[in-house]
């Protein structure tokens, strides 16, 4: 079998230039055990692969599974090079040690849709190196040249003599012959792929139809107590005093105590804890956020947007061009706070001893959890053990830099000699969470004589995700949070090696970091794009309308030098039948985005009734995600990404009045339901580029595409979200 040399020798810079942008994985050294050590009755072939004598192959997964498909794509990569069935590979969450940190983040973190791209070479290399050791062992045992050996379905095979042996039976020989992992190993050429690039069903799918899948909320430990926390009515509030007399009389209640997050009731069951919590009498200090409101944030941010901000990009002379333009188009876009509302409510189990702590937590970010707990308890980081079960959705919420839902469980478990499990009620999740920050974007633009955009001036105002965090140096440029402007800049910025794909001759973008009061901002699926996508792509639509240019033509012309985006847009025109007229009451809109180097565009068709009720009849999505590792998974992520973004745009709104979140559960924080889910047509463009993740890509364009379609149907432009607040009700 011919194998091309792996390109792991590429430097990070070369790899970026090769179009792999965020795939810094290329420089990842696989950390190999110094010898093929015995572990758990099996042999550790390298950091990621363990084979046991009965030929059970285990992958140590250093990325979380929360619906993103990480476990499927990672086992596919390993299976391809190791020549085993991906479904037969068992998965174990890798321990929280630097050996398993993401080569991109240098932390144990699953975020930014990077899993597929950043494991693409490491996981395949792990499989190929393990295979090379097995081949070497079999060759020595059988006394035949390595070149005559094949691998297939977990066995080494010598065709000439018909000898076969399962991998597991070669472990002893690997030990005895002191076979070491090779320094380099060839990887399969894509033309030889049997698994990668083919539709593959979810690795853990079977456990998700019979109720056996174990989420964090499902775990039960001997002697475990269940905790429910009464949280302050205002973010940042504190307990002054509490009276637990009534609560302590309730069945099953063991203890009531104040912790930083509020007052926790510990009981024998969760229901008992939750019910007793209702009997607490608590005096709160409402803190510095008492009195703040979403409307106040909007008005302060609007005022800030009129002031010069930190300058991120200034191409040409936008101010001059706007000053001399005959006509300047101006708009302000306003996007509310949004909750993640993962269907599995946040939860964490913690057990604390004198100098160690163990947590069981559905987390995207276990090295940070470990760090925060280690600081909180004053114990060495390695004394914090993290067990990571499956997660019932995350969408960014379980990547908290503050490790809020984790460290509070640790605090609740302090002084108890049993594990303590905290579960958030849905009301706590909606009211006391972290949110997609509220943003205001002030937009100004002008046209050239042909009606094309000539000058663009944008000022973004909102809370920074990264300011003051340990990521500050990496994701802030001269004080500017690069996520606040993701997809607004024409040139690469900071560690984001891509621009909008558009070229507007005069392009100026500024930002303000809003004061850090009110709430804790948190990444929400597609992060900056959740608001920048709306501001950029809706305002572009306004300029197209002002210049009387078809919105798709306009984007084709602006992206003429960006081959990948241009191809996406051309296919979108064809697949969406863009140029075919729609009937009365109907409308069509589109939006396009570069998400971490990968272009995506969506065309949306809506039908709008006179009262503003509307249906989404069709979404056509064209994307280029590089090599599509699992097309079936990509399609699912695209549908899901659209559903998530659509819900936020249609009716997502966390509204703060007098410091208190007004919403509490799915009746007043609605999410997309089946009858509202549009028909989605997904077109994945064939590509030989390195793969990029798609967990967030499809969320980015959907909100502006829908808003633009509503404008097309009705002539009414939405500039404050959600759509439901402006008389457009998705039915």
């Amino acid at each position, binding site marked *: 079998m011919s194998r091309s040399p792996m390109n792991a020798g590429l430097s990070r810079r070369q790899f970026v230039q090769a179009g792999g942008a965020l795939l810094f994985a290329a420089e990842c050294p696989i950390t190999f055990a110094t010898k093929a050590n015995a572990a758990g009755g099996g042999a550790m072939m390298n950091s990621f692969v363990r084979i046991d004598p009965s030929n059970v192959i285990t992958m140590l997964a250093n990325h979380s599974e*929360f*619906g*993103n*498909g990480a476990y499927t794509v990672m086992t596919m990569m390993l299976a391809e090079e190791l020549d085993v069935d991906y479904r037969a590979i068992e998965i174990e969450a890798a321990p929280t040690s630097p050996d398993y940190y993401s080569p991109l983040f240098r932390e144990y973190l699953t975020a930014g849709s990077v899993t597929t791209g950043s494991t693409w070479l490491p996981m395949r290399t792990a499989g190929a190196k393990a295979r090379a050791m097995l081949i070497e062992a079999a060759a020595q045992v059988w006394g035949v040249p390595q070149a005559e050996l094949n691998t297939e379905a977990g066995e080494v095979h010598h065709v000439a003599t018909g000898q076969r042996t399962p991998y597991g039976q070669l472990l002893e020989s690997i030990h005895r012959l002191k076979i070491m992992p090779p320094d380099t190993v060839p990887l399969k050429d894509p033309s030889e792929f049997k698994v990668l690039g083919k539709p593959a*069903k*979810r690795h*853990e*799918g079977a*456990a*998700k*139809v*019979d*109720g*056996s*899948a*174990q*989420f964090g*909320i*499902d775990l*039960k430990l001997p002697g475990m107590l*269940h905790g429910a926390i009464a949280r302050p009515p205002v973010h940042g509030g504190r307990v002054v005093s509490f009276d637990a007399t009534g609560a302590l009389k309730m*069945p099953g209640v063991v203890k009531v105590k104040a912790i930083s997050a509020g007052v926790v009731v510990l009981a024998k*069951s*969760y*229901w008992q804890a939750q019910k007793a919590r209702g009997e607490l009498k608590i005096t709160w200090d409402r803190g510095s956020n008492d009195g703040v409101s979403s409307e106040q944030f909007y008005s302060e941010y609007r005022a800030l947007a009129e002031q010069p901000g930190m300058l991120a990009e200034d191409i040409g002379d936008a101010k001059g061009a706007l000053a001399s333009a005959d006509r300047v188009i101006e708009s302000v876009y306003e996007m509310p706070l949004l909750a993640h*509302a*993962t*269907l*599995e*409510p946040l939860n964490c189990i913690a057990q604390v001893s004198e100098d160690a702590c163990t947590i069981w937590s559905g987390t995207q970010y276990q090295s940070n959890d470990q760090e925060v707990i280690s600081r909180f308890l004053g114990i060495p980081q390695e004394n914090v053990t993290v067990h990571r079960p*499956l*997660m*019932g*959705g*995350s*969408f960014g919420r379980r990547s908290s830099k503050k490790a809020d839902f984790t460290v509070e469980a640790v605090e609740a478990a302090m002084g108890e000699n049993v594990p303590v499990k905290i*579960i958030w*009620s*849905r*009301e706590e999740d909606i009211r006391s969470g972290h949110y997609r920050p509220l943003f205001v974007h002030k937009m100004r633009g002008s046209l050239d004589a042909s009606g094309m955009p000539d000058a663009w001036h944008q000022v973004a105002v909102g809370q920074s995700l990264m300011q003051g965090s340990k990521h500050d140096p990496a994701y802030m440029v001269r004080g500017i949070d690069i996520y606040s402007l993701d997809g607004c800049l024409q040139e690469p910025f900071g560690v984001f090696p891509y621009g909008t794909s558009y070229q507007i001759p005069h392009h100026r973008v500024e930002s303000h970091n809003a004061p850090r009061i009110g709430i804790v901002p948190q990444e929400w699926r597609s992060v900056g794009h959740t608001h920048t996508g709306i501001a950029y792509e809706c305002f572009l639509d306004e300029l197209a309308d002002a210049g009387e240019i078809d919105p798709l033509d306009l984007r084709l012309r602006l992206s003429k030098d960006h081959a990948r985006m241009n191809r996406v847009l051309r296919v979108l025109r064809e697949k969406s039948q863009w140029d075919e007229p729609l009937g009365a009451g109907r409308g069509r809109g589109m939006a396009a985005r570069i998400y971490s180097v990968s272009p995506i565009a969506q065309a949306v068709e809506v039908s709008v009734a006179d009262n503003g009720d509307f249906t989404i009849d069709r979404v056509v999505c064209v994307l280029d995600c590089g090599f599509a590792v699992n097309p*079936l998974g990509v399609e*699912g*992520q695209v*549908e*899901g*990404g*659209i*559903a*998530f973004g659509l819900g936020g745009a249609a009716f997502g709104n966390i509204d703060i009045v007098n410091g208190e979140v007004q919403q509490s*559960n*799915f*009746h007043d924080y609605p*999410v*997309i*339901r*089946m*009858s509202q*889910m549009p*028909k*989605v047509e997904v077109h994945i463009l064939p590509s030989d580029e390195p793969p990029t993740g798609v967990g967030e890509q499809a969320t980015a364009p959907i909100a502006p595409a829908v808003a633009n379609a509503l404008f097309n149907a009705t002539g009414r432009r939405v500039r404050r979200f959600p759509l439901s607040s402006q008389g457009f009700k998705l039915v």
Partner: protein
Amino acid sequence: MKLTVNGTEVDIASEGDTPLLWVLRDELDLVGTKYGCGMAQCGACTVHLEGHPVRSCVTPVSAAAGKAVVTIEGQADGAGLTAVQRAWLETDVAQCGYCQSGQIMVATALLKDNPAPTDDQIDTAMAGNVCRCGTYPRIRKAVHLAAKLIASEAVV
């Protein structure tokens, strides 16, 4: 208090006002039934009570006394997965999977009443079940496939 859960009679120690959901999860260790909202807004906790889908998060266990409860764990039997579960697997419906127990319980009840539902009928029957991952298109497909599987197996 006694109830029959997945065909087995069990004695319940929890207080009578405890929601059936928490009895199943915390007392009987049947954790396939999920907590999502606690107020019958999301459907993740759906079980069958006397053959009908109910939201176990708002059903006090006392209301199930002496009755038959079937959960997701009671779907597959010695003969293997049900047609609905097989259709779910074949269609690769699940993403995070947290809502899917509830979705499968509602779809199973729907297909008993209506062996060949239209898209609109599926949408209506399943409107109470939230999926934050947005697997709705595949759920719709899987319900149609399950209907076909059930029909073809009935003929055989």
